[in-house]
């Protein structure tokens, strides 16, 4: 890609050491580059490491987690290595996060208008009056009905959808270069989700922000992202341009994720191993081998690297599914 990547993750390993057991690795060698303005989707289920990746990008891996290997560079800077004060100038301003469950994470004793205004006040050096005006503009931009009145509302007085819009406003008020959206629409009703996603897409395009769109729902990424990455057990197992990915996914896990939407139980069963046959594999083999319907002896002995393939996908598999149907 041309130009400097806004986010450069190289061979990132994050582990959580514990006293008597082996270190648990949440991330095992993640490589990812995001160009300015690009919208990349990261799909994974719970435990895949996607939230740890989001925090690692922000330099906020919670203890006892440590970055064991590799680096994360945001705009050329390693946020984890910065001092607290330096880092907090970047967070919320150039790198912002859109969180799920906003009513639990917004400050319950402050009005939402004030919370948006705080970002402008502390990051942009605006006076309180200017910051309040900016906050009101943002409330309008995220299409909250009756914004003047809602400025003085408290988080618990808003519906889930409206609180989500407030969080989007907080993330975008400083026109950040990268927005990380972590499962931002889970728990929302489907019509509200559609509205919120449209809004998010419109606004990041307007502001020219790159987006790392983390989700459990692969269907969302089909409509909002230019590239898709699938993460399993701390590794990226497939990464490709959206159209190419959905035309023909190549990793068995990606296909399993798509099979979940099919109405054909027989086909779904073809791609799913029964509980009994999911035996644990010894370390050293492919992490997905235990659940893979296509596994061969080689898969259990040798972990496959992430390799480019003929169709432009990068796949982590010894026997990726054939390109032509």
């Amino acid at each position, binding site marked *: 890609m041309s130009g400097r990547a806004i986010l450069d993750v190289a061979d990132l390993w994050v582990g959580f050491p514990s006293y008597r057991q082996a270190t648990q690795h949440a991330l095992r060698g993640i490589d990812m580059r995001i160009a300015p303005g690009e919208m990349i989707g990261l799909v994974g*289920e719970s435990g895949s490491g996607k939230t740890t990746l989001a925090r690692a990008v922000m330099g906020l891996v919670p203890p006892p987690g440590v970055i064991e290997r590799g680096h994360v560079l945001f705009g050329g800077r390693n946020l984890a290595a910065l001092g607290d004060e330096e880092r907090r100038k970047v967070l919320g301003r150039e790198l912002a996060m859109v969180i799920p469950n906003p009513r639990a994470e917004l400050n319950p004793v402050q009005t939402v208008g004030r919370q948006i205004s705080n970002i402008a006040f502390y990051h942009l050096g605006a006076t309180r009056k200017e910051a309040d005006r900016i906050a009101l503009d943002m409330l309008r931009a995220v299409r909250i009905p009756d914004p003047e009145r809602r400025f003085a509302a408290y988080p618990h007085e808003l519906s889930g959808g409206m609180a989500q819009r407030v969080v989007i406003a907080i993330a975008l008020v400083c026109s950040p270069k990268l927005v990380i959206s972590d499962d931002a629409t889970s728990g929302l009703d489907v019509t509200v989700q559609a509205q919120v996603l449209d809004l998010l897409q419109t606004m990041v395009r307007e502001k020219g922000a790159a987006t790392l769109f983390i989700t459990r*729902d692969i269907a969302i990424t089909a409509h909002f992202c230019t590239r898709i990455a699938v993460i399993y057990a701390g590794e990226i197992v497939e990464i490709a341009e959206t159209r190419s990915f959905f035309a023909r996914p190549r990793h068995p896990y990606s*296909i399993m994720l798509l099979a979940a939407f099919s109405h054909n139980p027989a*086909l779904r069963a073809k791609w799913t191993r029964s509980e009994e046959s999911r035996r644990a594999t010894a370390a050293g083999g492919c992490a997905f081998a235990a659940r893979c319907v296509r596994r061969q002896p080689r898969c259990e002995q040798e972990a496959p690297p992430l390799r480019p393939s003929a169709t432009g996908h990068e796949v982590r598999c010894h026997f990726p*599914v054939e390109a032509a149907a």
Partner: protein
Amino acid sequence: MTAMLDVQNLVKRFPLAGTGKVVQAVNGVSFTIARGETLSLVGESGSGKTTVGRCILGLIDATAGDIEFDGKRMGRGRDIRSKVLRGRIQLVFQEPAESLDPRIRVGETLAEPLRHLGIGRADREKRAREVAEHLGLPARALDQFPPELSAGLQQRVGIGRAIITRPELVILDEPTSALDPTARAEIVDLLIRLQAEFGTAYLLITHDLSTVRFVSHRVAVLYLGTIVEEAPSEALFARPLHPYSVGLLASVLLPDPTLTHTSALRLEGEIPSPIDLPPGCPLAGRCPFADTRCHAERPAPVAVGPQHFVSCFHHQKIAALDSTIDNFARFQEESTKLLSVGAG
């Protein structure tokens, strides 16, 4: 043939203490479920669907309306626990981690309902083992504690506990909302298998439309405590005729970038509060087709096809819109092609 479950004009209001206002959660819901059939009650938050489920189970008392199970009228409250009904209607909860006692072994939890039917220990254990097989649970899971299992397996235990009494009706309240997509699909497959095996009827209460499509024979769409459309599953997904159903289905995203949610009909705003509803159609405030009649009068259900009812004065206009959401069918064709290749 008499339906197994017959709900007529169910109404539930919750008075708000100290303010004199009333939450009109359920406003005249009627439907039937035949033996071995799956009816999905679909709605967003505030639609009243969970309240309907609770009323049927007798967990809360309805304000008005009749519920008949197997031809016999269910009274206010206590009947679900009465000897004659015990074990015939069961419930599966949304959060498996919270509905399973973490200190009781899985095997015991599965067998617990049988204790209340007076079945002896040896028989209970046998049936628990049988059920575990049907559920696809590994044998050793019976001796484990719920927190040791994944969320998907926990939910299987929840379902197992419900069907072990061979109920005629199982009410499932958002059974897959807390699960990852792959686990969701597995649970759906399990439910279909169990229904084929035991002939259990399901009342599936959910807002997850992708799940609904697989497993339902019929779907009822609920909005602010009223059923706005009821139809066989394929009919609803292929050709929804109520503006809310159209808007709802248009919001469902499929994993195919070429299938965008095209719809001439956009629902603005959010679902209003169910307190002190105005007269007229519940969607009138948000519907682009609403006119004075819609604001004043509640539309009654009108038959528009076999077992297909719509409560809308303008359903013909909707039918004329080219807003076919055939996306679902098209996606099925493509995904079938995609998935047929390459499995081991």
